[in-house]
């Protein structure tokens, strides 16, 4: 499923999403139209409550818009059944979370191999590719280590390797540096930039981190659930 030449990988058309907070309906995203193209390294920035994570979740098919449409490689998937959306996330997307979200019972290598297992990749190929990815993020010596014995930076590296396991078109990263010290955060950022350049996967960040914003090639600023600014470096 390759995108049309020059077409958007992921596109939101007039999407809105509200959440119920007690009796009140709180709008998180209001009528946003935004597209992401192949290979982009984009940061969504804005104050807390501006709608960054909500927009990221809508793009990543983790949530559904109340109104509007989300198109993946030209196809409107807003009304797709959960099974189909799961398959699309598995095959085309990678995710990096603020608190790493590694599976605690699996080793670093098994965590990286897990998404490939969902896709039916053979055991040998899973192992080879997981080792190659762990080497790419500098953790070849930690393959058999479980997450609780890794540092925060190492966990995030494993999460990055996992996000790239199925050679995704887009990696969604929600505050990927927020739980890391500044030196480690810089290293992680360097790593993601390198992977973006080497492997061609687009990255979309939701972030408060000025360092991430400074390194992004495109910065979309959100305010009160709408796009205040969209600038390319």
């Amino acid at each position, binding site marked *: 499923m390759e995108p049309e030449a020059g077409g958007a990988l992921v596109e939101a058309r007039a999407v809105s999403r509200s959440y119920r907070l007690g009796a009140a309906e709180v709008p998180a995203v209001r009528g946003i139209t935004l597209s992401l193209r192949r290979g982009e390294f984009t940061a969504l920035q804005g104050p807390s409550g501006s709608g960054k994570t909500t927009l990221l979740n809508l793009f990543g098919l983790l949530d559904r818009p109340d109104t509007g449409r989300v198109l993946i490689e030209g196809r409107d998937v807003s009304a797709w059944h959960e099974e189909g959306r799961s398959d699309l996330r598995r095959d085309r997307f990678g995710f990096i979370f603020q608190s790493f979200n590694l599976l605690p019972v699996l080793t670093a290598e098994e965590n990286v191999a897990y*998404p490939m297992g969902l896709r039916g990749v053979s055991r040998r190929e899973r192992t080879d590719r997981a080792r190659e990815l762990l080497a790419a993020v500098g953790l070849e010596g930690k393959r058999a280590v479980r997450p609780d014995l890794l540092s925060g930076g190492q966990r995030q590296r494993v999460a990055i390797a996992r996000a790239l396991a199925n050679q995704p078109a887009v990696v969604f990263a929600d505050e990927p540096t927020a739980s890391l010290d500044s030196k480690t955060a810089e290293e992680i950022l360097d790593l993601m930039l390198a992977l973006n350049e080497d492997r061609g996967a687009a990255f979309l960040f939701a972030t408060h981190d000025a360092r991430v914003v400074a390194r992004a090639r495109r910065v979309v600023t959100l305010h009160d659930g709408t796009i205040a600014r969209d600038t390319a470096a």
Partner: protein
Amino acid sequence: MSALALAFRNLARHRRRSVLMGAVIAFGFAAFALAGGFIAQSFEGLRESTIRQVGNLQIVDRRAASGTEQATLEFGIPRGESARKLAASDPAVETALPRVEFVGLVTTGGKSIPFFGIGVDPIPEAKATGAEELLVKGRWLTPENPDGILLGTGLASALSVEVGEGVTLVATSPDGSLNAVDAIVIGLADVKFKELNDRYLAAGLPLVERLLQSEGKVSKLVLFLREGMDEAAAAARLKAAFQSGGWPVEVLPWERLGVFYGQVRLLYAGIFGFLGAVLVVIVILAAAIVMTMAVTERTREIGTLRALGTRPSGVRNMFLAEALLLALVGCAAGAVLSLIVMAALNASGIVLPPPPGGTTGFPIHVKAYPLAYAVGVAAMALTALAAAYLPARRAARMNIVEALAHV
């Protein structure tokens, strides 16, 4: 990584919770296997003793089979010896025993007491039914002692007679005339049921024929089949053969004749069913609580799995696999536990009280019945899966964003 391997690691990680649920399943399984084994063995013992008493099949006159017989031998089988030979010629039949059932009075002159009598061919009867084992005093009937009779211990006590003493039997013949014969008590028997002990009398067929003037007529033929023979097929063949020979008979299977067996079986089935239902409820509650806790504690992990592309059905199956694995491990532990308890019970020498109407208790003995274990594994696995289904479904249907934000 396979679903079962992942399930195993998750169970190992939450050791305390897994041990709790595993222990409930293990105890439930052990109780099921032990109770099942005990009851199955009781059924088997009761079946054997019932067949020893009533045979595999009985041939009776069609009218007698309908239960409308008013007087002794009113609807008996005439030409008893010919009928016996015909029955014995069937390839499935090992032994055919003629029996006459009759009622009358036994008197010492001073005391007269009603009895329920049975006329038998002494040697084949003893060989096939082990009737000699009922003797508590004296000896079994023999053709050489045609006037000898056996009395139940209760009847002998009521008559105040001992082995070797003479009594007179009085009964009505099939044509309605009253007749009496003298007899000698040669043995006392304990037939295990008090009411029967107080009325039991056994005699050889020649004596009974003299008393009843029955001219070779018998009440029934009791048939013991060879090992592994098809009872229904034999019954059909025999019925056809007897009808061709001019005997309008019914061939009754032992299940229909062993009323006590049927009643005990129903009682035990009720008890076992109730016990099983209690076990299932306990296991369902424990498993549902444990799986609900597991789903709640692992909400964020569920969100991650879903985000990575695990289908809802995959999440559901992961929790079901954990429940199934726990059930299987619990059953394995329960099997070991049941074998230990079984050995302890069998070595304990505990004597259970006599069954309803019985006169003697019996030592507890439990055997390992593979069927009870197989059914136990299936029951525990299905119960654990049923208990885990709702929590697993809840996990599968979780909102991904809310699950990822769960603290």
